[in-house]
């Protein structure tokens, strides 16, 4: 087990290095965005003086390296500063408004919680569904059932998400009013209400991610069916279902886990379209809004968060894949 622990620590350190490199890329990319916050907020009539004044007030006139180091040292302490939008209001309305200023972290936190809730709900539906369908399509491979499942999940993944969302709204909110079409959620709602209101976006996301996980499960299992130990299991007179679940699936876990991790990362970082359609207050919307007004601290913090999610989920997938291999779990 100490070997496994060493691998985990190694990967974690490597993840930190990756995150550092990503932080540089994020900073350079965000600063390369055309336009800046001052011009965006002042509009067409901005004079050079007023732009310069605001830039000076926000510290945007300093050289990039100083700003990067400043940002990085804050990020290490989970202090991403104050959103530019908040700072502006503070400046305009005097000291009384400062009480209401929210830091970047405070702004992101509830949104992140909402996004994680939606991702968790979608994953709770999609992963069992995809793995079950993958096992069934592998069991009845090349049958009509297999072909129908493949075609329908592929159609779902090929359709734009907003289209899937509107179809679901049409059938599950308008024609049969089962779920609300707007996911208007807030912290005061009960757990049940949260689930109900988030159901339509969760179903949309389920449709978007099931195909990949299902097809990987199917392919990983079928890949093993020619191996001698599967033949042995069949020659022991075991039922086809038992052969697949007991003998093929445990050996097919590594690729399945990897695909699940990638899809989980997508569920957390890539859901802005679905959030917009259902007016779901998630992190994707905050991110897009911030890009629009060049609210750089928020954009950078979101990017770094997304990168961390990817790295952490892939790391988890790697470790789970290793753990799923009996040769590594039980060394000689």
């Amino acid at each position, binding site marked *: 087990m100490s070997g496994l622990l060493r691998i985990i620590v190694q990967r974690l350190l490597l993840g930190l290095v990756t995150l550092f490199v990503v932080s540089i890329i994020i900073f350079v990319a965000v600063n390369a965005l055309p336009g800046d916050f001052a011009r965006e907020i002042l509009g067409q009539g901005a004079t050079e003086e007023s732009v310069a004044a605001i830039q000076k007030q926000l510290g945007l006139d300093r050289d990039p390296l100083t700003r990067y180091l400043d940002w990085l040292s804050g990020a290490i302490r989970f202090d991403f500063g104050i959103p530019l939008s908040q700072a502006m209001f503070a400046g305009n309305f005097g000291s009384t408004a400062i009480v209401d200023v929210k830091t970047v972290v405070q702004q992101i936190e509830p949104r992140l919680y909402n996004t994680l809730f939606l991702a968790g709900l979608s994953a709770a539906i999609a992963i069992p569904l995809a793995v079950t369908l993958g096992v069934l399509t592998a069991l009845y491979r090349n049958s009509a059932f297999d072909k129908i499942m493949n075609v329908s999940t592929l159609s779902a993944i090929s359709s734009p998400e907003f289209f899937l969302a509107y179809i679901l709204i049409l059938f599950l909110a308008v024609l049969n009013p089962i779920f609300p079409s707007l996911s208007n959620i807030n912290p005061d709602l009960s757990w049940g209400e949260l689930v109900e209101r988030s159901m339509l976006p969760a179903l949309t996301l389920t449709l978007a991610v099931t195909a990949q996980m299902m097809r990987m499960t199917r392919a990983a299992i079928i890949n093993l069916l*020619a*191996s*001698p*130990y599967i*033949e*042995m*299991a*069949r*020659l*022991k*007179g*075991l*039922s086809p279902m*038992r052969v697949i679940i*007991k*003998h093929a699936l*445990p*050996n097919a876990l590594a690729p399945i886990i990897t695909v699940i991790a990638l899809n989980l990362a997508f569920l957390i970082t890539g859901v802005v379209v679905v959030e917009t359609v259902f007016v779901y207050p998630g992190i994707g919307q905050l991110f897009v809004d911030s890009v629009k007004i060049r609210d750089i601290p928020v954009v950078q913090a979101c990017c770094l968060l997304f990168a961390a999610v990817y790295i952490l989920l892939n790391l988890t997938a790697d470790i789970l894949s290793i753990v799923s291999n*009996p*040769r590594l779990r*039980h060394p*000689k």
Partner: protein
Amino acid sequence: MSDQLLKIRGLKIEGRSDETWNPIINGVDLDLNKGEVIGLIGESGAGKSTIGLASMGFTRDGVRISEGSVVFDGVDLVTASAADKRALLGSRIAYVAQSAAASFNPAHKLIDQHTEGPTQHNVSSRSESQSDGIELYRRLRLPNPEEIGFRYPHQVSGGQLQRAMTAMAMACRPDLIIFDEPTTALDVTTQIEVLASIRDIVEQFDTAAIYITHDLAVVAQMADKIKVLLKGDEVEEADTRTMLSAPTQEYTKSLWAVRSFERPAKPAVISGSTPVVSVKNVTAAYGTVDVLHDVSFDIHEGRTVAVVGESGSGKSTTARCITGLLPPRIGHVEFDGQQLPLDYRKRDKMQLRQAQMIYQMADTALNPRKTIGETIGRPVEFYLGLKGREKRKKVGALLEEIELEPTQYYDRLPSELSGGQKQRIGIARALAAEPKFIICDEVTSALDQLVAEGILKLLAKLQDQLGLSYMFITHDLATVKAISDEVVVMKDGVVVEQGEKADMFQPPHHPYTDLLLSSVPEMDPDWLDNLLEARGVDNIGDAAVDKM
């Protein structure tokens, strides 16, 4: 007639390739009584395994039974429903595969795989079959029978796995077991142990068996009667003693005769002459673990040195040290009296050219996308600098040397060749560099005996013509006898004995050499009995090796 267990009539099996169905088995009959053991023998492609599986009513993907019947105890398995067949498989008919390492599921403990059959077939409860499993492990003389089942397959050695698989086949006390080459992947000393265990337990439970193998000497120990197969047809069938002493068919006689090839002894080495290759006190390690310890031997011009030993003895590692793929930790290698750089990357073209290799698996050693002309042409261009027409001419000459018609084979891909032809291409590629010395790493062990004999004869002819020196790595003592001039016996990375072949095959031997020699099955049906009597059941196989 009530004794009849299995009756196969007019069995025809077809295999799918390129959208058409081609015959694999052309109408074979087989009868087996309760408690009887039949040996199926033949070369690869004879259809032994296909018949073995078909006698369970099973065919692999892309293979189908087109005609005939397989009647097991009154049930025709060809027409029986899948559910009916499943009820029989594992419970009344069981299977022991060639590679136990690949046929045990790596994700589950041995005992869990053992108890799966009995519990799924409702033969016994889990705890009953578990204690029965431990009892079977004991009877099969597995070490630590109480505990070994709770390990995962990768934690157990090959010979032990093969016995655990036999135990698993026995779990439901079947009437019939199909043994599909169960000892082919094992070392000779391990093989004996598995053979003795299998034979004992089959006798104890009066189980009928189909024993599939290409090794005549093995089948002679195991079977009551033998059926010889060739390309999907039965050649002949007779009881074991008759078949061994008086085969009627030409093909059977030719199989029996293979083991007689032996090249004449060469004159002794002139003392004081410089050896072509000299391995000097080589100690080498993988990581921090030493796997070779102070290995030294010489190979003289025009001579063949066989390096013999079981898996893990360090034969191939020695080859890696000579070629510079694994630089030795201590010691060095000399070529024509000159010390070679330890690492192949530091050797010049001339030094690289002088030592070539031929590999065990010709299949994987040839690039499947390159034609034969390209494969052999590459070293011709690289080492000899020939291009265009000259290169083509040289490749043609090499193909003639390995007895393949140049115009026919130049543009073929490896997939269009047989196993023996592929190995010949491997030889031609080694010859293309015009080396003085070739390492042959188990070059015949993946081939059928007749084909292997052809390769050995070719290598001998080339040696006479070109004055080549060979280092011949093998675990097969029959091959050693056939081709070598000198023998180096290795065990656990140490040379335990070396000398002229004639001396090696004459007593007195080093005890390990003796064990190796006496473990090679002979074509005498009483060989195993005599050996067990002479050595005692507890003094064979791993146990005997460990005592050294």
